[in-house]
């Protein structure tokens, strides 16, 4: 299976809204230069692609739970996940743009 990864950057948005965990999301416009991310049906974000400075390495962190050794302290296992050069930076969508895009989608 061929895989590619993109980093979604919400730092710009986190100052205005709080992103809940385990919320439903819809990501549309992936075939365009400005995808739209809708979180929990309320928050609309418009994204644009940015190149990384250097390389962005993603690592996953899993908590090791061994049933047979309960007395052992829990340790995290780090695994490299991806090497990516693309960042999708999102910002809050303006009302006009939102309406415009909605109409476009309808057409």
């Amino acid at each position, binding site marked *: 299976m061929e895989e*590619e990864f993109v980093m979604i*950057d919400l730092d710009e948005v986190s100052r205005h809204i709080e992103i809940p*965990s385990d919320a439903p999301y819809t990501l549309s416009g992936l075939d365009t230069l400005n995808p739209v991310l809708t979180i929990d049906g309320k928050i609309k974000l418009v994204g644009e692609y940015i190149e990384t400075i250097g390389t962005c390495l*993603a*690592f996953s962190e899993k908590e090791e739970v061994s049933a047979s050794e309960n007395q052992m302290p829990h340790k995290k296992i780090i695994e490299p996940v991806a090497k990516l050069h693309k960042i999708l930076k999102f910002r809050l969508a303006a009302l006009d743009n939102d309406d415009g895009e909605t109409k476009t989608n309808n057409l």
Partner: protein
Amino acid sequence: MGIIENGTISGNLPSKEAFVVHYPGYPSSISRAVETLGGIQGITTARESTSNKLELHFRPEDPSAHPAYGERRHCNGFLLKISKEDVKKDSLPESQPVISTSDACLPEVRPALCADIVARVSESYCFDGMVDYQHVIPIHADIAQQKKRKWMEVKSLAGKNDLMDMADEDVMMLLPQFFSPKDRPDNLVLRLPVTSSPKKKDEELTQNLYEIDIGPVFAIDFSVKEIPKILKWEDYIVPTSNQWKWQVAVSALFEERPVWTRDSIVQRLLDKGLTCTHHMLNRFLLRAAYYFSGGPFLRFWIKRGYDPRKDPESRVFQRMEFRVPPELKGYCDSNATNKSKPSWDDICAFKVFPFKCQTFLQLFELDDEYIQQEIRKPPKQTTCNYKTGWFSEALLDNLRLRVAVRFVSVFPEPGFEDVFKSIQEEFERSEKTRIQKDALQPSQRNHQETTKDMKKCKNTNKEKDDDVNADEDSEDLDDEYEEAANDDDISISSHGYGDMENNSRTYLQGLFNRFPSSASALYGSANDDNDSDGEYPIYEQESNALDDDEEDDE
């Protein structure tokens, strides 16, 4: 994984956590990048560490490589995964939506793009510091740029194989150079230089003390009202230092007696085994003493706080000079370059003939019974005279001739008995003259001295003398020549000082008589009523003043 339909996917935000490292470079592979970050173990250690630092060694094989530090930061992000499933050959381009729509009835045949948000990114490591110099071959940089540019097009998703090939070629070459010991930029504030050396502080303190407390001590005018006061040098000399021992020795001499010649001080210090430079001795002397620029104690070091002009007992410390007779000057010329000079004690004891044409002595130090008896007789003057001090002019002349007799008697070369006899006879005549003058009535002598004081007022030149401690003998020779020239000038200008024609004519006649090299005219013929003896020392002293001015200019 959700299939992208009309460019849209749906799902729930994941709870799975991940972190990212904004790696400042283009590693050839993920494994190489992990290696430069210290391996999985190093990353794990950094994650658990409280320093929030992740070390990056661009050259992990180089033990001396300087690490760059990544700083942990909080961030809000997600990781979007895009994949392609069921890769099959399809002649139709995927980007055409119309064709895709028309083929929707056959989904199992065509490839499908899937996308999903797979992880939440809450932390990242950023490298903001400076790093070692990094050299990247331009062709590799270009490949990296091209690879990036393709991301702007959807087609790049289909070029997976090409990307892998480019990744292999993206080799980073590093030069092993140490750029800077500093890791992060820093603001520097320039501060005023601080003298941390205690030695410098002591020197500054000493200099200030010199300027403030010591005051004028060199060549003080004889008519000054106040003399330098006693200096408490113990306040700024460390008792354990070498200077302390020196200063104690010098100050002790002035407790022994208040007036010294420099030559005698040097001799006494040498007898104690103390030797130092000319400059250092001056420093020790000025802390304990001072000297006048003229008068009967000319350039003698006088104890601070002691005024010889007010103490008649200081008469025994007055200055006396000896000038080598012209007939004997050849001896001094031949010994001008003689390095083995006679000791000061031997000179004061009249054991050797001096090498210099002019020697300044202190009456107190002369080993001569006649002189010591005469200077210890009760003083007959109530004030200290600039020219003769506490003594009368006749007495000083008598003592000067006594010194000459003693020195000529020890002249080492034979054949000069006539010179000795001549000086001896002159000494005996001066003794008679002195006795007769002493018998004069006090009122008459006061009148004569008043006349002499008036002459002194007309003399605008201050009485000065050569430096007793001339360093080079050649300078002495030059001084002698200058003195000769000055004598001529003075003899011409003497007309302006003649109050009495008889005295002037008699003096000039005596001067003419001395021109022939006759031994009998060595010190001039002195009659009972002749005042020319009084004129002689004045002009000699004036010539010394001129020489001294020139030395001061240098």
